[in-house]
C-alpha cells in the first residue's frame, strides 16, 4: 500500500539553510547537504529545497548544493524557487533533483507547466500553490511569498495546473504558515476532492496530530514541514509513530524503528 509521506522542507539562501519568519530575520542553520543527509537518516521520505535567494547570479551555488545533496541523501529531492524556464528546470534536474516545484512562475506563465511536463514528464513537475482564505470562505492564490494577491481561485488553479501537466500539487495555507495552528484541512479537502494527483499539505504544522489530520481529514497524500523539524520540536519518527497509531500507512525506516 502506498505510504503517506513526511517531507522535510529546507529554506536555502546563498548556499546555506536559513530559517526566519517568512523570509525576514534569517538565521543560518547549516549546510544543506549535511542537514538533508541527517533528515534522510531520521526517516524523511523526501526533501524539498526552497531557494529563497533565487537571484540569477546564485544559480551556480544552488546547483552545487543540489548535486552535493543528491550524492549524500538517497531519497527524492524537489527544488523550488526561481525556476522560470524549461532550461532552468533541465539544469536543476541534471544537477540531481528529481522534481521541480513551480509557484509564482507557473501563475505568471501557465504554459511553463505544460512545457516542463512535456519535456521531463509530469512526475517531475510539482505546482506549489500558496492560498489565503477569502471573506466568502473560498481560497485565493497569492504569489511572491504571500505578498501579492492574484484573484485566482486556489481550487480552480489546482485543477487547471493538473490539466496542464502537474504531477503533484503542494498546497500551502498562508493563513496557517508559521502559526503552528495546524494544517487547513478544509482547504486540503477542497483540493484533494477535485484532483487525482497526489496533494502535499503545507503550512501550520505544530504537533504530530496535525499531520494525522492533514491526511485523515484533508485527504493529503503527503505532509511537509520545516520549522517543526529544524527546531527539533518533534522528531520525524514521532510524527510517523502518531500517523501509524492513527491507522495511516507510513514507511518506518530501520533507523526510525531502532
Amino acid at each position: 500500500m502506498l505510504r503517506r509521506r513526511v517531507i522535510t522542507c529546507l529554506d536555502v539562501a546563498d548556499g546555506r539553510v536559513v530559517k526566519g519568519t517568512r523570509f525576514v530575520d534569517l538565521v543560518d542553520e547549516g549546510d544543506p547537504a549535511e542537514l538533508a543527509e541527517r533528515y534522510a537518516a531520521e526517516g524523511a521520505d523526501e526533501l524539498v529545497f526552497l531557494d529563497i535567494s533565487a537571484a540569477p547570479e546564485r544559480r551556480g551555488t544552488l546547483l552545487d548544493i543540489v548535486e552535493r545533496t543528491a550524492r549524500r541523501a538517497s531519497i527524492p529531492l524537489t527544488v523550488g524557487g526561481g525556476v522560470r524556464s524549461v532550461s532552468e528546470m533541465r539544469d536543476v534536474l541534471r544537477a540531481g533533483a528529481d522534481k521541480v516545484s513551480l509557484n509564482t512562475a507557473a501563475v505568471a506563465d501557465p504554459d511553463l507547466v505544460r512545457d516542463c511536463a512535456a519535456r521531463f514528464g509530469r512526475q517531475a513537475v510539482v505546482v506549489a500553490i500558496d492560498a489565503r482564505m477569502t471573506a466568502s470562505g473560498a481560497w485565493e492564490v497569492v504569489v511572491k511569498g504571500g505578498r501579492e494577491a492574484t484573484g485566482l481561485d486556489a481550487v480552480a488553479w489546482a485543477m487547471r495546473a493538473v490539466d496542464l501537466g502537474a504531477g503533484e500539487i503542494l498546497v500551502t495555507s498562508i493563513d496557517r504558515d508559521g502559526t503552528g495552528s495546524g494544517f487547513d484541512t478544509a482547504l486540503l479537502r477542497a483540493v484533494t476532492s477535485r484532483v487525482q494527483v497526489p496533494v502535499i499539505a503545507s503550512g501550520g504544522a505544530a504537533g504530530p496530530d496535525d499531520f494525522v489530520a492533514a491526511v485523515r481529514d484533508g485527504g493529503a497524500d503527503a505532509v511537509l514541514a520545516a520549522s517543526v523539524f529544524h527546531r527539533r520540536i518533534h522528531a520525524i519518527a514521532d510524527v510517523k509513530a502518531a500517523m501509524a497509531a492513527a491507522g495511516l500507512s507510513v514507511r518506518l525506516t530501520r533507523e526510525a524503528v531502532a
Partner: protein
Amino acid sequence: MTGRPRIAVVDYGAGNLVSIDQALTTVGADVTFVQDPDGLRGADAVIVPGVGAAQPAMTRLDAGGLTEPLRAWLDAGRPFLGICLGMQLLFEGSDEDGATTLGVVAGRTVRLPNAPTLPHIGWNQVERTRSHPLFDGIEDGADFYFVHSYAGVVDAVAGDVVLASTDHGGRFTSVLARGSILGVQFHPERSGPDGLRLLANFVDLMRAA
C-alpha cells in the same frame, strides 16, 4: 571479472543521472554514461534508467543508434537492469503513447487501473512472489520509491518472470527477471539503504554472470 565492474548507463534525456551515478559508485561499480553504441563496448552490464513516456525514449534510442545494439545485448541474455521506464521498455509496447518498445518480454505497458491517485508517487511495498538473489539482505515487503502512472503487464507466454508485485488500487508487477535481465518499476537509486542493497546485489549477480 577482476577489478570494478563497468556499467554502461544509457543517457537519453535530461533527467537526474547524479543519483544513479552516486548509487552505483557507492556499491563498487564504474559508471559510464552512454549515448551511442560505442559506449556499450567493454561494458559488463547495461542499465536503462529513466522516467517519462516510452515514445520519446525510443526516439532518442533510435537517434543514438542504440535500439538494435540494446536488442542484441538483451537477446544474448547479458546483464541488464531496467529502472522505471527502463523496465517498461522491455515489453512489446506501451499504451501510454502507442510506442513499440524493445519486445524482450511478452506483454504491454498499461495505465495502472483503479489507482486511487495518479501518478503513483511515493514509497510502496515490494512483495515477492518468489525468492531471488536480487533481494538478498532485504526484507520481503520493504519500501521502495515509485514515480509512474504506467506499468508492464506480463503476458502468460512470457513464463515465470515476475519476482515481486506492489499494490496501488490493484497489484502490478514491480520486479521481473529473465536470467540476467532484470527490471524494477521503482527507483533503487532513490530508495535509501534498501535501494543501495538491491543495486549491490545486481553488481554481485553481474560479476557471477
